[in-house]
């Protein structure tokens, strides 16, 4: 397969992965592996910023890569840190020249056998998500002509992450909607159960329910659920002290 085919196939493969219910970590690992083959570098890794601005090494093409990324994050120096802070791509063709720039990262990376290091930002407009790290065993390991392609792959990672966040948020809101609606339904059903069992009207049924919840320091919704599920007998609601005006007729 020639290079153009490989690049095209990689993008199709990544797009195909972005379907419903995909696993983000799995997707980012695939992306890191494909970066290695398409960009002809030794290793690739995805570093993502968490809610507190703390970076996390989410997916790496190898354990060697992962360890160096952890050093970057722990010691707070290295290309991905600079890239994430600035939002701009970072190039270092000669790691041996970079021990001043990155006093912790550069020696560690050299010791692991890397000779050059690059980082491409993952961002959407003003929103900086993280960086795509690319390390090579040789100096000048990322061909200049590959830079645009590296950014395109970082953009695919960005889309994958934002898509996953959107879905997660949607699922959360949908779950809240269902819970809140069900709570309403169950509360009304419980009033009906009490009204029928205790021969009271709906207002009195609600007063009994609320009186019981307060007396037992329970959530109204929980008492309602128990009444509907017949875990709490209606008779035990009606004999409470202090439920004035809500006694059975």
């Amino acid at each position, binding site marked *: 397969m020639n290079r153009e085919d490989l690049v095209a196939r990689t993008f199709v493969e990544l797009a195909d992965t972005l379907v*419903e*219910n995909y696993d983000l970590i799995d997707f980012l690992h695939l992306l890191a592996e494909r970066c290695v083959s398409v960009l002809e570098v030794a290793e690739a890794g995805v570093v993502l910023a968490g809610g507190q601005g703390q970076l996390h090494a989410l997916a790496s093409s190898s354990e060697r890569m992962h360890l160096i990324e952890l050093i970057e994050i722990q010691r707070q120096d290295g290309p991905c840190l600079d890239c994430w802070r600035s939002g701009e791509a970072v190039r270092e063709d000669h790691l041996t020249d970079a021990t001043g720039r990155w006093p912790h990262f550069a020696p560690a990376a050299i010791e692991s056998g890397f000779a050059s290091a690059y980082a491409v930002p993952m961002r959407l407009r003003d929103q900086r998500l993280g960086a795509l790290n690319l390390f090579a065993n040789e100096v000048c390991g990322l061909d200049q002509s590959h830079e645009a392609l590296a950014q395109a792959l970082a953009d695919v990672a960005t889309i994958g992450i934002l898509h996953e966040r959107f*879905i*997660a*948020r*949607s*699922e959360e*809101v*949908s*779950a*809240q*909607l*269902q*819970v*809140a*609606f*069900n*709570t*309403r*339904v169950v509360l*009304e*059903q*419980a*009033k*009906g*159960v*009490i*009204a*029928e*069992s205790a021969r009271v009207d*709906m207002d009195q049924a609600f007063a009994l329910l609320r009186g019981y919840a307060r007396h037992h320091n329970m959530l109204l919704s929980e008492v309602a659920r128990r009444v*509907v599920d017949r875990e709490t007998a209606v008779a035990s609601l009606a004999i409470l002290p202090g439920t004035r005006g809500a006694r059975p007729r």
Partner: protein
Amino acid sequence: MTSDRSQRMIRRLVEQAGGPDASLEWLCDTCARELEVSGAAVALIVSGHDPGSIASSDEVASAVVDLQFRTGEGPAIDAHRGGLAVIEPELATSTRWPVLGPEALAAGAEALFAFPLRAGAARFGALTLYRDRSGPLGDGLFAAAQTMAEVACEVTLRLQAQVPPGSLHQIIDHLGDQRTVIYQATGMVMVQLGVGPEGAGAALRARAYVTDRPVRDVAADVVDRRIRFEL
């Protein structure tokens, strides 16, 4: 519909989404017009068989959803359960929904279409379309309808995301208000028949069906103790 038209619709909808609650009604009107059907409704389905419209383009569209609530069957329920689009271009000859079919025809629907509202693993209803003459959706309109269902899903969730957890956005709350008497009656019938909420709900709907009355009216009679369900 060309993709240009589809994109323009979506752009206008998204512009409105953060604003007034009219956006879902507008979406239904837009679906009716642009998808070349007679009407559209956004049906919310919270528990398994409980569809209720939170927005609709016209009376028939909301009646089609209400009928599904009463009969416990129909395109919105199937789309919601299966997670896939449901297409019934010729209701008159279809045996798919034996109870709903004749009622929907009588209400003025000859063809029914429904597209699930879903976000990731979550599903909570269906965009329901009807047309007063039979036949499939027009060329390219199937994909457009699916897109509109995605937009309806996003708009609904955006509205719900505006309120704190535990509460409901007013257009969803409004559906709950309309159903209050039904849920109260369900609780009473549970005691009368000694059954769970599903059984009691089914009994209420069946009574409404055989007496050809709205479920809400039957429920009001139960709550006012004019009707009792006996074993």
